[in-house]
């Protein structure tokens, strides 16, 4: 078993990366502050994985939308009761979530950590689906889908993604639709489980107080060896253009919501440095210290509690987006485009660049206070082939030129404005 110590002199933290013989990568991050220990076990399998190719089989295979999320719900059940009941005995607080690219099972606890870890490793590796249990979940997930249907923030985002992407599955709802989930059978669930819940395609992250030897001994006992099968994501070719430049919907809201942004040619997966450069650019462009934000605020166009921006990227998709509530979403979009134009003409001011770096450094150090934010951060970075401390170092090392270079991605002819208006 290969164990590597990864250190960050900047943060004063370290962790151990363990390549377990079963194929699982394990991250052990000791943390003395706080009482909570947090464990998260995740698979590189999300809502975008509806078409895939296994390295041991010839053709690509397509399955109904919403299986990753459905599986997440059903994995909690086993032949002898549900995992929540088992966690209830240890007092751990357990949960799970499905995102575009991953499915994660987690718990946090302040006592009896080893018992809870054993439950986590056990239930995620023990699928049990029957016609009856699968059917029962349709009512629950149906209500989850409807809850999101009424959530204007969710709707404005998905309308945006559907307007931006012609074919990439990022445009699909994470839980699928009431129609697509009606097609889900135990066979589909087993098929996808056996394809994606291969330990080579998964990672385990533990942050907090634990005994490393005990954890690794338990992993030796619980982890079931897997064939070294690789799963590749299969996407249709996505054009560089957007599908629709604007999209609008009416819902029971009192104030319009918007999502505005730019499509980037997806290309190769981004590095830590790419992310750091874009984060700094966005901080310069739109943070509360920026001239743009001030203009938007003084113009009565945005408010502090809802305005946000994000570099949202992953397998086959990348977009820079801005969102919030506004009485005049078109004017917000215009102002953002104008400011980008100005920065392209006049360059990124060095003072703003330095200030943005300081702010992001502080925010990243602060995030290392929380076991849950470290664990989720490490897991999601690793499933995308990245590393936490390398990202923090990249923030310090990135140059003004590298940041300015990112402006070329923000092209007016690749922009989308999605708006939700009152009825």
């Amino acid at each position, binding site marked *: 078993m290969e164990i590597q110590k990864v250190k960050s002199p900047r*943060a004063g933290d370290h962790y151990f990366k363990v390549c377990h013989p079963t194929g699982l990568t394990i991250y052990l991050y000791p943390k*003395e*502050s*706080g*009482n*909570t220990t947090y464990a998260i076990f995740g698979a590189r399998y999300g809502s975008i994985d509806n078409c895939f190719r296994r390295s041991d089989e010839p053709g690509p295979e397509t399955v109904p939308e919403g299986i990753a999320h459905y599986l997440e719900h059903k994995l909690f059940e086993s032949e002898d009761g549900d995992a*929540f009941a088992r*966690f*209830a*005995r*240890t007092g*751990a607080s*357990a949960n799970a979530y499905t995102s575009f690219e991953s499915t994660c099972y987690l718990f*946090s*606890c*302040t*006592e009896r950590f080893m018992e809870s870890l054993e439950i986590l490793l056990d239930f995620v590796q023990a699928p049990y689906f029957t016609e009856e249990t699968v059917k*029962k*979940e349709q*009512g*629950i*997930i149906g*209500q*989850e889908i*409807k*809850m999101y*249907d*009424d*959530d*204007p923030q969710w709707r404005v985002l998905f309308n945006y993604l559907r307007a931006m992407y012609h074919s990439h599955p990022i445009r699909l709802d994470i839980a699928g639709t009431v129609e697509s989930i009606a097609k889900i059978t135990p066979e589909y669930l087993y098929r996808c489980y056996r394809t994606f819940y291969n330990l080579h395609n998964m990672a385990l992250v533990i942050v907090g107080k634990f005994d490393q030897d005990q954890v690794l001994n338990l992993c030796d006992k619980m982890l079931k060896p897997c064939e070294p099968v690789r799963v590749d994501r299969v996407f249709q070719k996505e054009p560089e253009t957007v599908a629709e430049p604007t999209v609008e919907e*009416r*819902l*029971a*809201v*009192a*104030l319009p919501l918007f999502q505005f942004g730019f499509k980037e040619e997806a290309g190769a997966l981004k590095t830590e440095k790419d992310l750091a450069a874009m984060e700094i650019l966005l*901080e310069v462009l739109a*943070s*509360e*210290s*920026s*001239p743009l934000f*001030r203009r938007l605020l003084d113009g009565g166009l945005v*408010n*502090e*509690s*809802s305005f946000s921006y994000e570099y949202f990227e992953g397998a086959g998709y990348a977009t820079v987006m801005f969102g919030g*509530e506004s009485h005049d979403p078109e004017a917000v979009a215009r102002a953002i485009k104008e400011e980008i134009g100005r920065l392209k003409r006049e360059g990124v001011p060095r003072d703003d660049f330095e*200030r*943005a770096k*300081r*702010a992001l*450094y*502080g*925010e990243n*150090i*602060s995030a290392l*206070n*929380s076991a849950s934010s470290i664990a989720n951060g490490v897991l999601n970075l690793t499933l995308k082939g990245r590393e936490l401390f390398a990202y923090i170092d990249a923030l310090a090392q990135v140059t003004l030129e590298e940041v300015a270079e990112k402006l070329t991605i923000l092209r007016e002819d690749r922009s989308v404005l999605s708006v939700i208006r009152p*009825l």
Partner: protein
Amino acid sequence: MGPGAAMNSLSDARFKTMRVSVNMLVPLTKETAAPYALLPSLVSRATRQYPDYTALNRRLSELYGATFSSCVRKFGEWQSVGLSAGGIASRYAFGGEDMLEELSRLLCSVLFSPLKDQEGLFPEEGFRQEKRQLLEMKDAEYNDKMTYAHQRCEEILFEGQRAGINRCGSREDIEALGREDLSELWEQLLRTARFEIFTLGDCAPDSAWFAERFGGAGSSQAPGRVAYAEPREVRCVTEEQPLSQSKLSMAFRLDAEPKERMLFQLMSAVFGGTPSSKLFQNVREKMSLCYYCSSSFAGASGALFVESGVETENLEKTQEAVLGQLKALQAGQVTEEELTFAKLALCNALHSVGDSLGAVENWYLSRVFDVPGQSPEQAVEELMGYTIEDVVEAAGRLRLDTVYWLKGNGGC
């Protein structure tokens, strides 16, 4: 520190951050709720030293992305008006800044000598922007149907009483705000509020420095809780909106002593507070009626809320199922196992309070209304002593008061 101000310091060098905050507690009144909600964001948007929004935010970015924000909370019939500043610990500040000193000075400067214009009023532009943003926050609460349904239920439950006043006042109250009265209202807030000051995380406050500034601030009025009133009849209110899912919000009143808070937390956990609770196990898992159905205990209000999101045609059925589960609980249908699971879940939550500076502040601020100064560890001890009989007896004190349906008519 003085008759009207208490200092709560929890220094812990294992944190990478620090936080300093000032919370001013005042009784909720229709006249003051809106101006007191507006004032903290108004005073904190610029200072005499950084007299404009952008200049202040640039300073915060230079201080490694420090935060400086306001927060308005509600505890029963009291309003908590808070200002807080937080950032990385000084040992991470490569420029050598003393973060506690920087942020405490900032906080005190806006509290005691906020930026004013030549006429001695809060600047016009800031006032206009903050008033607009407060009104937009109201709109955002309408946009979020879970929040909206809960707030409507609470409004109906406490109709005509102080506890029924929104934490930021009503839309009309906010619209009626004028800049001229605000300077005097700020002075009034500083004079009459009870101050709860916090310094948390990796910082070592100089208590003399704080005593000098806050020793004479505030007044010594003791926060109280909503008095119990036996519901006469159940009030049922239905509103319709074009939604795909309907929301059910039920409010129960209960007659409890402040010191019984943990008992009622435990009862709520058994009833609908955890995945092993009666509501989750039966209404969601067995009946597949919903994605969420949970209860929450609002101690300072003397109320317990149950909330769920369901198909419109299942509103009645879900409501009956909730009442059925309550009836079972009141009839003593609780196992030792259910009790233990609820205790363990609460213990876990209590032990986790110390992990986040915001949670620590929230904990001790909330304790002002029931058991002042009680630590999470003491609460655990108390919790473990309760028996099935105690929980059943507590459930027996729940009285259904209000049922609110936000009825979806199929969406658009």
